């Protein structure tokens, strides 16, 4: 990264404030900023902007709604170490409403939400976790007596940005698995527009943090694909950067759990890994701050495609994935190539027989041709001696 001082004025007051507020060393804080900037694929030097934005502590108001979900997304965020969500909540954002984290309960909680929405009208960030049921007029999920659909529409109306976190909010996720009894729908479907989504079950917390910090730094959300997923995180197939990709290319597959190939870390494609049809950065961004192997494929389980609509929770886990780019060949070259065998008895005998037959026939024919030639020569010699008249007589005689 070069010399930190080139990028930052490490003695500046705000940075020292951050150090105190977050109770983390400056170096660690700057590394965190750099990690986020790198996750977003921002150019070198952008970490400075990121750091400044976090230092500034504008504390935008965030309203976090929970619908049909397991709170796994929040759980995974709580496990993020640099900094902990606790610090992020307290310092970077003003989390005014989060059902599982806030101390308030009942009417007090709803009142906090309403007052935050009123005070930060048009400026707060709305984060939605969980799918929204629409079947039977949306009666299957209510909070404070209010239906999920109504609550979402009400909160989204005045939000500066809406972010759908997790697969449930992104495209229905697990609750929408067939036959989808509650009509679980995504945030986009309810709001009737594409909203930025961070799918995953749960998503990597850094993808969410990076999206929020991008908003803080640049005042807008990062570039997204047509499904609303930030391109920095969901622009490539898991398969493209998978640590086991070399095994795929070489045709080394685990055929069942615990077999020799599986124990040696071979490709999990034939166990149903959905990496080849799932867009996410799982293979490049460590999960849960526990090391780079800490993701499903790294642990030896095939990817289930949780970030991809139509794959995760829809295709059977061990169904072989549809290849979106490279299809593996049916056959691979052998590692040790056969070098050929010496002549077998049958083939040597056959070659000898063919050669012998040809030679024998040639000799016989040559002999016959020689005999006929000798006879002809002898006759000619006789004819020359006997004269022309005799020759004619001899021919006549022969014809008779």
């Amino acid at each position, binding site marked *: 990264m070069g010399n930190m001082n080139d990028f930052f004025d490490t003695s500046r007051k705000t940075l020292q404030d951050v150090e105190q507020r977050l109770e983390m060393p400056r170096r660690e804080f700057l590394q965190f900023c750099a990690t986020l900037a790198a996750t977003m694929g921002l150019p070198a030097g952008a970490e400075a902007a990121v750091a400044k934005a976090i230092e500034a502590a504008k504390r935008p108001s965030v309203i976090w709604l929970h619908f049909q979900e397991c709170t796994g997304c929040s759980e995974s965020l709580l496990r993020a170490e640099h900094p902990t969500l606790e610090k992020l909540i307290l310092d970077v954002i003003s989390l005014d409403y989060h059902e599982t984290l806030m101390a308030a309960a009942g009417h007090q909680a709803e009142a906090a939400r309403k007052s935050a929405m009123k005070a930060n009208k048009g400026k707060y960030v709305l984060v939605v976790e969980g799918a929204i049921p629409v079947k039977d007029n949306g009666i299957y999920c209510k909070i404070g007596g209010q239906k999920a659909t109504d609550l979402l529409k009400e909160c989204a109306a005045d939000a500066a940005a809406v972010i759908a976190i997790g697969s449930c909010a992104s495209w229905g996720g697990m609750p929408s698995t067939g036959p989808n009894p509650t009509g679980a729908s995504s945030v986009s479907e309810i709001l009737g527009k594409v909203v930025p989504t961070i799918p995953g079950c749960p998503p990597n917390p850094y993808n969410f943090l990076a999206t929020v910090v991008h908003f803080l730094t640049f005042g807008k959300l990062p570039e997204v694909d047509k499904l609303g997923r930030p391109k920095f995180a969901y622009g490539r197939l898991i398969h493209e950067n998978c640590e086991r990709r070399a095994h795929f290319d070489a045709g080394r597959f685990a055929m069942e759990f615990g077999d020799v190939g599986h124990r040696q870390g071979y490709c999990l494609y034939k166990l149903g890994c959905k990496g080849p049809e799932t867009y996410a950065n799982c293979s490049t961004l460590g999960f849960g701050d526990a090391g780079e192997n800490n993701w499903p494929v790294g642990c030896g389980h095939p990817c289930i495609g949780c970030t991809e609509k139509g794959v995760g929770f829809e295709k059977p886990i061990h169904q072989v994935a549809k290849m979106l780019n490279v299809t593996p060949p049916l056959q691979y070259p052998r590692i040790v*190539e056969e070098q050929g065998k010496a002549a077998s008895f049958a083939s040597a005998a056959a*070659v000898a027989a063919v050669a012998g037959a040809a030679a024998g026939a040639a000799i016989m024919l040559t002999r016959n041709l*020689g005999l006929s030639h000798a006879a002809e020569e002898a006759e000619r010699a006789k004819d020359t001696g006997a004269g022309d008249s005799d020759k004619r007589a001899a021919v006549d005689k022969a014809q008779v």
Partner: protein
Amino acid sequence: MANNQHAAPAPVGGSLVSALTLTCGVLIALMVAILAVRFLFGLGAVTALNDGYPWGIWIVVDVVIGSAFACGGFSVAMLVYIFNKGEYHPLVRPALLASLFGYTLAGAGVIFDLGRWWNVWNMYWPTSINPNSVMFEVAVCISLYVVVMWIEFSPVVFEQLGKREAKKKVGKAMFFIIALGTVLPMMHQSSLGTMLVVMGAQIHPLWQTPLQPLLYLLTAIAMGYAVVLFESCLTSSAYRRKLETHMLTPLAKVMLGFLAVYLVVRIGDVVVRGALPKAFVPSVEALMFWLEMASFIAPLILIGAESNRRNPAKLFLAGILLMLGGALLRLNGFLIGYETNVGDAGGFTYFPTLAEVLVTAGMFAIEVLGYIIITRRFPVLPREDVQAAH
């Protein structure tokens, strides 16, 4: 036309069923059975081919040697039509017939050897061709020549079927077809030698020379005449016809001319490149080299004298020896003198399987059977009664 002074060709007639034709039939049936296995289960199921020896006898014998044996039509046509030696005209049709089968089967033999033969159309498809490849030149040239030869031979079929109009039409374009039929073999017979050149150091120094295309072309022409000697003597014996010694004697002289030029180039090349000492190292390659050279030199000794060239037995033997020499030149270059991946792995080995030998035998059986059927039923050989009175 040159052929006016000769007896017109006529079908030989007679029964098609004999011990020979039945044997051919059995060999062909065996070949078809083996090829069925080959096309269903792949090359590995029937051949001894491996990564070190991707070409076995199907390519070397059926295609490279087979097409050289099939140069009779080209050599005689060149003599008759280009050098205007009309006296050899009766030899054209039988020689052309043998070439026709030789080349058509060589083309088919390539398909047998292609691992993914269903992709073969790419070789001709304008967007996928590779004009810089020697293989492309050989493939296109041989394919074209097969078509050209069928057109060259078509008057025989038209004659027999009584289609005079068709024969007349083809006759008008024949000068062009014949010219093409002379140029094309020169191109691909030399390119077959180029294939050895591009194989570089994998070929033993006795056969690795930039002159290989010229050597292949010279031997192909000489072998063409040798095949005519062989085929004419064989046909006369088998059908109990009068020997065509009066044509074969001067033809043998032409053959010896090409052979002498070849030997000068060949020996000169080996000496100039400094490869000659390799011929005295005790090895299989050296032994095969001397066998090859002996086969080429023997005809010169055997029929070098004019009196010996009148003896059909010696003509026949000389023809066979020259064919053997040409075959050995090709076999030595492509298989005996070919070595790849010498080193830790111990090198590759190849010896044809019984199945491969039987397929090659079946290919030759098709040629023999086809020759018998067509000469007995179509006007290829000169009419015998006129010939006898000649």
